[in-house]
């Protein structure tokens, strides 16, 4: 399985290399005409960027002096499902914040798709974030908007035409099994349902990656399973899914890749659950 990962990533690196060469040699048009045609079967369609996520020796210290990350090296491939685990205070949330560009790395490089996150300009951050869908432990829904409006809001914010919003929101709410809750307000539905609304909102702009920081932290175990099943389903639809959690039973149950953060570095990285 590990070998398969590296093989896939190697393939993609070649893709990127050819892309790079085509650009640097000035043959922009050629790149689209020929460069991709023979590679496209391997997933290198010109309009869809390959969403590899890479952390190279990333360090983060907060102004308070806390060193949260001491040199993280990570590679997550396009379409992977990854659990990030570790004790409280290990630096998991910091890792996600760096990914979301909410905090700047002290040193090291973070590459997401075609974006060098560590070098991104403020003006480009919003456009970069549209490629990531985020789900938080505390849902962060707008209490004065209905379920439908909360999801539609995400699309309004990025300037989606109303016609498209009206078509897309019901479909997404269907995906997360909330077709019958369109007009409910967040305080009228359960925690599990609220988190599914948050998930729908994260999906609204069709991001390439879904990031969930302790998505089941505030909901009961049975509902947790439902959220996790949805995340797996979303992953099967082709999106990279990164789930931060410290619920070992969930991690073991799904048998996916697990990255353990400990003491500010990647302590373990293997496939198939924590205790295997």
């Amino acid at each position, binding site marked *: 399985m590990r070998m398969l990962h590296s093989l896939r990533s190697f393939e993609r690196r070649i893709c990127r290399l050819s892309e790079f060469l085509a650009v640097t040699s000035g043959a922009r048009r050629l790149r689209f005409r020929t460069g991709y045609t023979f590679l496209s079967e391997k997933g290198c369609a010109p309009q869809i960027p390959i969403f590899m996520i890479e952390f190279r020796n990333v360090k983060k210290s907060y102004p308070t002096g806390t060193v949260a990350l001491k040199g993280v090296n990570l590679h997550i491939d396009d379409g992977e499902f990854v659990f990030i685990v570790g004790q409280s205070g290990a630096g998991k949330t910091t890792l996600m914040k760096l990914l*979301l560009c909410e905090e700047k790395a002290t040193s090291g490089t973070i590459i997401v798709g075609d974006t060098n996150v560590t070098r991104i300009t*403020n*003006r480009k*951050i*919003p*456009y*970069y*974030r*549209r490629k990531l869908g*985020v789900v938080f432990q505390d849902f*962060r829904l*707008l209490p004065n908007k209905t379920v439908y409006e909360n999801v539609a*809001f*995400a699309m*309004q*914010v*990025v*300037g*989606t*035409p*109303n016609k498209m919003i009206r078509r897309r929101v019901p479909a997404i709410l269907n995906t997360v099994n909330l077709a019958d809750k369109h007009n409910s307000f967040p305080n009228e539905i359960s925690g599990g349902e609220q988190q599914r609304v948050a998930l729908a*909102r994260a999906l*609204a*702009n069709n991001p390439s990656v879904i990031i969930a920081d302790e998505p089941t932290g505030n909901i009961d175990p049975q509902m947790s399973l439902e959220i996790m099943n949805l995340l797996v389903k979303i992953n099967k639809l082709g999106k990279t899914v990164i789930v931060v959690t410290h619920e070992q039973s969930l991690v073991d149950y799904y048998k996916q890749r697990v990255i353990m953060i400990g003491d500010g570095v990647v302590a373990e990285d293997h496939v198939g659950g924590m205790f295997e």
Partner: protein
Amino acid sequence: MRRYNPFYFVLESLKGLKRNGVMTFASVAVLLSCLVVMGGFALMVYNINFNLEKLDALNEIVVFTEYDASIEEIDELAGQIAALDNVESTSTKYKEQILADLKEENPDLYGDVTDEENPLSASITITYKSNEGVPELDFQLRQLSGVRKIRNDLNVATTIGNLKSGIMLVFIWFLVILFVVSIFIIINTIKLSVFSRRNEIGIMRYIGATGWFITLPFIFEGIIIGTVAALGGYFLIRGAYSYVIAKVVSSIQILSFIPMADLSGLLLLAFFGIGIATGVVGSSISLGKYLKK
């Protein structure tokens, strides 16, 4: 191509204004008061200047000739005066003409006076080039023969000039202070509005809203506050002005007022300009950090 719905921004800003109703009201009230005071002051200065301009007769020196001077002598004197350094122009009035003017103005008093009995002397009115040169000019005039009397109101003229610039200075300081107060109040209103929507803003940023998309509703809030204050202030000033004119004009006839119709365009423009500028500047300052990301 993605397009944003402009109604979204207006609607959001109206919602924000409603949510912080008290502060919104306070902002509008303060800005409106500022505009009214500014406007009232401006109108006052404007009218004082308007009335002072009529007194510009003060900016001249009048030379009276001897009573028995002949027309030739008067013309010669006028020629000598015109040749002096600080003299811009002269205009001569013979005593017959002055009498005729007086008769016309006040037939009861001067109607019977004949040219033979004319008690007046000819006058030569001088407009001069610079105020500074007036004392010297005065001295030179006294040296000329045929000059009986010199009327020189320079002191009055300079006093009025000083008064004018003094009023302007006070006015400008007033404006600056009121402008700063208005901006301060608006900054606080918008800050409050931002604070009550901080969750929404946080979510918007995670979703990938651009800085201007987040801030535009708040800028609009400033614009709406400015517009409402401008309109309210304008109508208030208008009412007050016509009231004052009606009261004062009937009691003090020597004062004249610029009619409101001549001023309303300018006033409205200035109010909208200042109101909207204050709103935009105030909200931009309170949004500084959001505009960056």
